[in-house]
């Protein structure tokens, strides 16, 4: 997994690339820390470049959602396709994260 954070105004966009799986746990937590420290109003996770997400990866989105609620920023997830989109739909996390 690779990611790039871009910032326009108070809104951030994190563009992910590669797979989001169990082994990305540490870098994902670091990402959340980075986002929290920068006091954004909103952050969009762009998953267009993500091919695969496993259950641990979905868990990380849930952690991000909780972090957003605690810190008071808005998390959205966009661009999911293929396997990632079906996983989000199957687990209804699309309702929780995209809605």
């Amino acid at each position, binding site marked *: 997994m690779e990611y790039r954070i871009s910032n326009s105004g108070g809104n951030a966009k994190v563009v992910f690339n590669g797979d989001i799986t169990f082994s990305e746990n540490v870098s994902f937590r670091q990402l959340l820390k980075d986002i929290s420290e920068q006091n954004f109003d909103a952050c969009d996770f762009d998953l267009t470049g993500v091919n695969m997400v496993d259950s641990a990866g979905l868990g990380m989105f849930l952690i991000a959602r909780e972090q957003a609620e605690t810190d008071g920023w808005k998390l959205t997830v966009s661009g999911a396709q293929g396997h990632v989109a079906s996983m989000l739909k199957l*687990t209804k996390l699309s309702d929780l994260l995209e809605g």
Partner: protein
Amino acid sequence: MTVISVKKEENQELMQSVFAARILIVDDMALMRQMIGMCLSRGGYENLLYADDGDEALRMVEEESPDIVVLDLNMPRVSGYEVCRTLRADVKHEALPILVQSASETPEERVEVFASGATDFVSKPINQPELLARVQMHLENRFLIHSLSDFRLRMQSELSMARDMQQDLLPEASSVEEIEAASQMKIESFYQASFELGGDLWGCWQVPGNRLGLFVLDISGHGVGAALNTFRVHATMARFLHVRADPAAFLTELNAALAPTFPLGQFATMFYAVLDYETGHLTYSGAGAPKPMVVSERGVRLLDSTGVPVGIIKKPDYFNLEDRLEPDESLFCYSDVLIEAPQKEGGMLGEDGLVEWVEQLSRSGDRHSLVSNLLKRFFETQPSSLPDDLTAIALHPDRG
């Protein structure tokens, strides 16, 4: 040199081991043996052993098991090189530190010393503080490596015990046979824990009214956390057997009990079905498990297992769906590693790919061996130890 920082107490313990170490000093000259011995004993080492030639050194290594050897190179009968080579050829001594001391010191000689298996080198005349520093460093490394490999062995055996205990959560063969006999179904199952610990679980039980219940679940992530959660879920499930005839109610109760205690970011995807084996009527509810398949020679139908995984939110809206399993149809449930494992040609198999495999296999006839044939094909492209648990269960009607 590797710098390994250890906590203070561990450090004290380590230094005690270092000074209690057995040191074998090998030199054909009595004066040199004496001098090295004196230097080490002044440095705090008490367990000193002496040999006056290579052959005696080899004998003493076998008999006395020293922790380090301080070795002269040029000796009349068996040289230091020979000692190094003999010791390294024996797997017992491949990690024994050998500190070679020699008067002549050409670059070629140094190369030969290390090529023959020495750990380190000090030149003669011996610089005493250097000798002490090198001996101490190699002994520290030796004891640290020992304690690390002890720790690793202990962890391995604990993990393997945990894997066995997890395996015990699965239905016993005798209870599966009972259900098979009562329902005239064949239950084909496969479960393989990952090389770490994982979080898969499946189970089946009888439900009053000629019915059987079957669930598969997968706790997110893997490792010790996921494995411990399977125990939590298994124990919690036992409390809700009174609603086992109603899949959605069962998931709802289970979720209500687990959601407050599940750590953030962890959850269980699950599928639970109740099958009336007289009529083939199937009632099921999903919590985000991979979509089960109804398989026959005509093809594959996917069951909708959409639902919020257990353990995330307080009130997910689980609902029952109805279907019918015809006598020539099997129900196949599996865990996500089957579709997510990387394929030889890159990418992953995916749900579509797996459906294609299952269709091919069921058309080829032997539907009752669907799971074993499918896994045979799966393991042709996968290493035998997987990064995640693998569960595959099929219910085959066996009437007539």
